[in-house]
């Protein structure tokens, strides 16, 4: 048992066996892709194609608005048929580009190898991350080039690759560490070079021994003159949360409200490292990603390489369809993922998983009064008072919710998971956060 961990957290069932043994397979290219223009935290894109245009695979179709934003790309070659709002994983319809697939996969001219890593400057690596539309693929979709742009007075000494994959059910990162370990190391070296960081760390939970072995091999063979270490982490949710991962691997605590940069660290997901490696080596922009399609409500769970804009419905059909008792569709993992009202929603850059849960997971649970057992406080990785924040928010006492630490909550869900009274603490805290944020803006 590894000692690298943090205080708090929970041990839900892993549920990884559904898909952890399934190699990454290519999903069928759909007849039509619907590519959202909102695919990252920050500003959305403006379309740079028009209805009727012929586009090629990998061609830029959305131009970012502002610095904290990334371009989006066509994931098939074909014809733009519509540009209009369509259902987005966040719930509201948002602008999207509809492309009819011609089945040719004609690549864009820009998709060719550039200079090797040895010849690239720090600034050029950052530019590649920006031009090829890279975002954090763990699910948060924070634009990668922003993480590579610390203010000049901040010296980043450590880059951490997040291979914890602490969300139950999901196995995309796990498969990637088994099958694309060399590219993860290559991408990490590129991150380190871009930031001038001297330490590289790959953190993997110790329930994935084969991934640890795979990463150790890839690091030994590929690290060259870079100082890269693989850390086995105690298996506990939310071990892969940014601040918990930094604490476990470096012992540093990111102050409330601050970014990892404050403790001279940048975190990246393993998938993002692979995307950077492929951007450098192949000139390939981010138009596809690995998605775990899993859960007790899907007939044939799988890990699939999926083109951006593929309908979730399509993926479910390719996995044998839903079972009779399927009741809930979640994009992402079961702890932080978003439940969907329909399966007609496109895969975006942040879609790490398609999870189908059955009746037994969605039993109607009544909400009881807080019995002050304090278990939510014991499990909160941020050492907050979830019961007090939740009750304050429930009563619309927003100042009190703020006093008990609402703004430090990153909504991991440990408190709600643990609560014996089945109180929707995270939901109430989210409401309080929204209200506090709105008041601060005034």
């Amino acid at each position, binding site marked *: 048992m590894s000692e690298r961990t943090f205080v708090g957290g*929970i041990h*839900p*069932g892993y549920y990884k066996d559904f898909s952890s043994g399934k190699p990454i397979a290519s999903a069928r290219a759909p007849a039509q892709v619907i590519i959202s223009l909102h695919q990252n935290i920050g500003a959305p894109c403006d379309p740079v194609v028009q209805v009727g245009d012929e586009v090629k695979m990998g061609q830029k179709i959305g131009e970012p608005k502002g610095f904290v934003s990334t371009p989006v790309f066509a994931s098939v070659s074909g014809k733009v048929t519509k540009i209009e709002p369509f259902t987005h994983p966040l719930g509201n319809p948002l602008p999207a580009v509809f492309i009819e697939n011609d089945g040719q996969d004609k690549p864009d001219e820009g998709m060719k190898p550039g200079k090797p890593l040895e010849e690239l400057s720090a600034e050029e690596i950052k530019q590649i991350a920006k031009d090829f539309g890279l975002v954090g693929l763990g699910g948060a979709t924070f634009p990668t080039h922003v993480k590579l742009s610390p203010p000049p007075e901040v010296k980043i000494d450590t880059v951490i690759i997040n291979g914890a994959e602490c969300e*139950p059910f999901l196995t995309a990162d796990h498969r990637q560490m088994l099958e694309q370990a060399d590219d993860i190391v290559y991408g990490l070296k590129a991150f380190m070079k871009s930031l001038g960081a001297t330490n590289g760390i790959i953190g993997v939970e110790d329930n994935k021994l084969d991934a640890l072995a795979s990463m150790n091999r890839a690091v030994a063979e590929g690290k060259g003159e870079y100082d890269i270490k693989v850390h086995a982490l105690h298996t506990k949710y939310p071990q892969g949360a940014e*601040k918990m991962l930094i*604490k476990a691997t470096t012992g*540093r*605590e*990111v*102050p*409330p409200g*601050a970014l990892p940069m*404050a403790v*001279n660290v940048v975190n990246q997901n393993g998938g993002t490292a692979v995307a950077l490696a492929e951007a450098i080596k192949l000139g390939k922009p981010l138009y596809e990603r690995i998605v775990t399609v899993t859960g007790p409500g899907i007939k044939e769970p799988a890990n699939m390489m999926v083109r951006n804009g593929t309908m979730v*419905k399509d993926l479910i059909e390719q996995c044998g369809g*839903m079972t009779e008792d*399927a*009741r*809930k*569709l979640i994009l992402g993992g*079961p*702890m*932080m*993922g*978003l*439940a*969907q*009202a*329909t*399966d*007609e929603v496109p895969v975006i850059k942040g879609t790490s998983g398609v999870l189908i*849960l059955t009746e037994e*997971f*969605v039993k109607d*649970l009544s909400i*009881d*009064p807080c*019995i*002050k*057992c304090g*278990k939510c*406080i014991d499990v909160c990785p*941020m*050492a907050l*008072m979830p019961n*007090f924040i939740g009750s304050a928010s429930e009563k619309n006492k927003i100042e009190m919710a703020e006093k008990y*630490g609402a703004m*430090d909550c990153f*909504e991991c*869900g440990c408190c*709600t*998971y*643990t*609560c*014996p*009274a*089945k109180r*929707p603490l*995270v*939901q109430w805290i989210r409401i309080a956060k929204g209200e506090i944020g709105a008041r601060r803006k005034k």
Partner: protein
Amino acid sequence: MDKKLVVSSSPHLKSPENIHSIMVDVLVALFPVALMAVFLFGYRALATMVIATLVAMITEAIILRKGNLFGDGSAAVTGLLLAMVLPPAPPWWVVVIGSAVAVGIGKHLFGGIGNNIFNPALVGRAVLVVSWGAHVAGDVWMRPVPFNFTADIVTEATPLATKAASLLDLFIGTVSGSLGETSALALIIGGIWLYYRGHIDWRIPGAFIALVFVFGLFDGGFNMGLYHVLAGGVLLGALFMATDMVTSPVTSVGKLIFGGGCGLITMIIRLFGSYPEGVMFSILLMNSLTPIIDNLTLPKRFGEVKQKNA
């Protein structure tokens, strides 16, 4: 698509534990204590426990206007705990009043589960002590007659008043006292179960017992320290009453303060007060301080203290 999907806020996984399962765990923890009481005090103890538990459940069912007598199990816990702090064989109507007061006034007058300030079982006992003291305090304690289900009642003062029992008797429970307080062995088994199930923290009982022991040292050395821990209601109070989730602090530091306060007040009453026992009043007093203790001991948030050299 023909299937209706459920949409809700994350997380989408919930632990199997609920209030009902916690209350069942507490009842399981009380089982060895109840069993020991029947061994020691016979059918009268069994009758006291059954009456207290039933009346508590009926009172709650009436107040909540629901048909399910057991409900979430919290009323049964309150009733059984009340029986534990009564003499083994009080008049039946005393048990009925105490149990109805515990649930009706101690719990539901404050808003029901989760909202009561004072431990309901102890509220029930406090009302009985001040209103019908002749039946529940003083020299009403039945002498235990092990393995005799229908023994006659011979009453005597508690070992806390006489200071004459052996430590082994106190540990096994073959001394007079409240129905559930005499056997340290049974209480410790129940406490271990609660700790193993994650329903009590070591801090409250730890601080409570430690302070009682330390003050006991001043009352007559090591043996007297142990005597004060084992005799009377300290173990029952520390493991089952002070650890009541609703009425004790939720913060780690707060739990230490709460447990320490209970131990301190218990010993002040025992050594300097007019009652031989002080566990009930100490816990009720500390219950009233719980909200302020919580607010004065908010934990340090993750990353709150910046490293100076960072």
